[in-house]
C-alpha cells in the first residue's frame, strides 16, 4: 500500500495507449466491456451508389478516444445513459405512469433504436425516436414533452441506444417512408452555404482525409447520441447536422424541422448494417 501512482486525465491517455499499443487506428475492432461486439465496418447498403464499404466514426478517432468507448466505466456518455435510465423508471405526468409502467424494463426495448427514424402510421409521418418518446410522454403519461435534443431527451435516447448496442441499424427506406427518405437524400447531395458544400463533399468524397486537424469520417450516425470530448456532454444527431451546415457558412435548418428529420432518416439508412453504438465517445 506504499506505492501509489497518480494518474489524471492527461496520464489516462498514456495508460490507454499503453493498453492498446497493438491497435492500429484503422484496423481496430470494437468490443465493449469485453462482450458486446460492435460492427464497425460493413458492406454498404444497396442504395448507396458511390461507396462500397461503410465505417463507424469510431474508426476515425484517435487511439485514446477509441479506448474510452471500450469500457462502460471509461465512457463518460454512460453517465448520461444512467440518468436516462432513471427517468425511464420515474413516474411523471397526470396519468401517474413511468415509461416502465407500459414497457417494463428498458432491456425490453432492445432493437428499437436500430429502426428509428421510422414511419408512424397513425400520425402519417416519419418520427425520430425522440418524437416517439414525446408522443408517449404527452398521450400516455400526460407529461410535458421534452424539447428535442435537450438534456433529458438525449439522456433517454442514450439509454435506449445503450440497450440496443451491437444490434444492426436497419431503418426502413421504402413504403411510406420513401418520400421522406428521398428528401433527405436530396439534402445530403445539395450544396449549401457560402462554401457551397454538400454533406457528400466531405463525408462521401473525402472521408479518411484530414480537414485541417480533423480526420473526416463518413458521417455515420450509428453512434449517436455521442459524448464529445470538446463539450463534455451528449450531442444529438440534429445538433451535429446544425454544426456541419453552419460550418459551410449557411443558415441552418431548425432542429426538428422536416428537412432535418428527413436527413436523419437518410443518414441513418447509410449506416444500415453497422451496429448501434451509442452513447459513443468522439472528439
Amino acid at each position, binding site marked *: *500500500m*506504499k*506505492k*501509489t*501512482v*497518480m*494518474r*489524471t*486525465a492527461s*496520464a*489516462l491517455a498514456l*495508460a490507454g495507449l499503453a493498453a492498446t499499443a497493438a491497435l492500429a487506428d484503422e484496423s481496430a475492432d470494437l468490443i465493449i466491456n469485453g462482450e458486446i461486439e460492435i460492427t464497425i465496418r460493413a458492406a454498404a447498403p444497396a442504395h448507396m451508389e458511390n461507396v462500397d464499404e461503410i465505417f463507424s466514426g469510431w474508426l476515425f478517432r484517435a487511439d485514446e478516444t477509441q479506448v474510452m468507448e471500450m469500457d462502460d*466505466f*471509461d465512457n*463518460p456518455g454512460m*453517465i448520461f445513459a*444512467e*440518468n436516462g435510465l432513471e427517468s425511464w423508471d420515474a413516474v411523471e405526468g397526470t396519468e401517474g405512469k413511468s415509461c416502465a409502467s407500459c414497457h417494463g424494463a428498458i432491456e425490453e426495448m432492445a432493437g428499437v433504436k436500430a429502426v428509428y427514424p421510422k414511419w408512424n402510421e397513425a400520425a402519417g409521418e416519419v418520427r425520430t425516436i425522440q418524437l416517439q418518446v414525446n408522443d408517449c410522454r404527452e398521450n400516455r403519461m400526460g407529461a410535458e414533452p421534452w424539447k428535442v435534443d435537450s438534456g433529458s431527451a438525449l439522456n433517454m435516447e442514450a439509454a435506449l441506444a445503450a440497450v440496443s448496442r451491437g444490434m444492426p441499424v436497419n431503418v426502413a427506406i421504402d413504403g411510406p417512408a420513401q418520400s421522406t427518405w428521398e428528401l433527405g437524400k436530396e439534402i445530403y447531395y445539395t450544396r449549401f452555404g457560402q462554401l457551397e458544400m454538400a454533406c457528400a463533399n466531405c463525408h462521401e468524397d473525402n472521408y479518411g482525409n484530414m480537414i485541417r486537424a480533423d480526420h473526416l469520417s463518413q458521417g455515420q450516425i450509428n453512434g449517436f447520441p455521442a459524448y464529445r470530448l470538446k463539450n*463534455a456532454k451528449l450531442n444529438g444527431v440534429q445538433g451535429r447536422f446544425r454544426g456541419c451546415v453552419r460550418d459551410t457558412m449557411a443558415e441552418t435548418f431548425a432542429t426538428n424541422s422536416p428537412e432535418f428529420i428527413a436527413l436523419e432518416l437518410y443518414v441513418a439508412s447509410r449506416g444500415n448494417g453497422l451496429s448501434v453504438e451509442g452513447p459513443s465517445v468522439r472528439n
Partner: protein
Amino acid sequence: MASGVKPRVKVPKSATAGETITIKTLISHTMESGQRKDSDGNPIPRSIINRFTCDFNGQNVIDVKMEPAISTNPYFEFQATVPESGEFKFTWYDDDGSVYEDAKSISV
C-alpha cells in the same frame, strides 16, 4: 447545491498479496469554475469538488487537492499495492460542504 452527484468506483474484487491493482473512480459533478457568467452577465458561483481521498484500512492511499480548472465529472485512475484483504474507502469533498463517500472491499 450541486445536483445529480453520484460517485462511481471500479476496484477488482480480489487480488493476490502484494499485487498492484488499478482503481478507477468517477464522480458526476458540474465542476462550475466560478469564472463563467450566466446570460444576464452575473458570475456563476464556484462549485467544485475540491478534494478527493482514498484510504485502505485506515491508511491513506492518495489525497488530491483539486482546482477549478478541472473539467466536469472528474475521473481518477491510479494504482495501489494490496497487502491484505480490506476495504478501500473513497471520499469526495464538495465546496458546499457535502461529502460523498463510496467503499469497495477486496479479498486477498
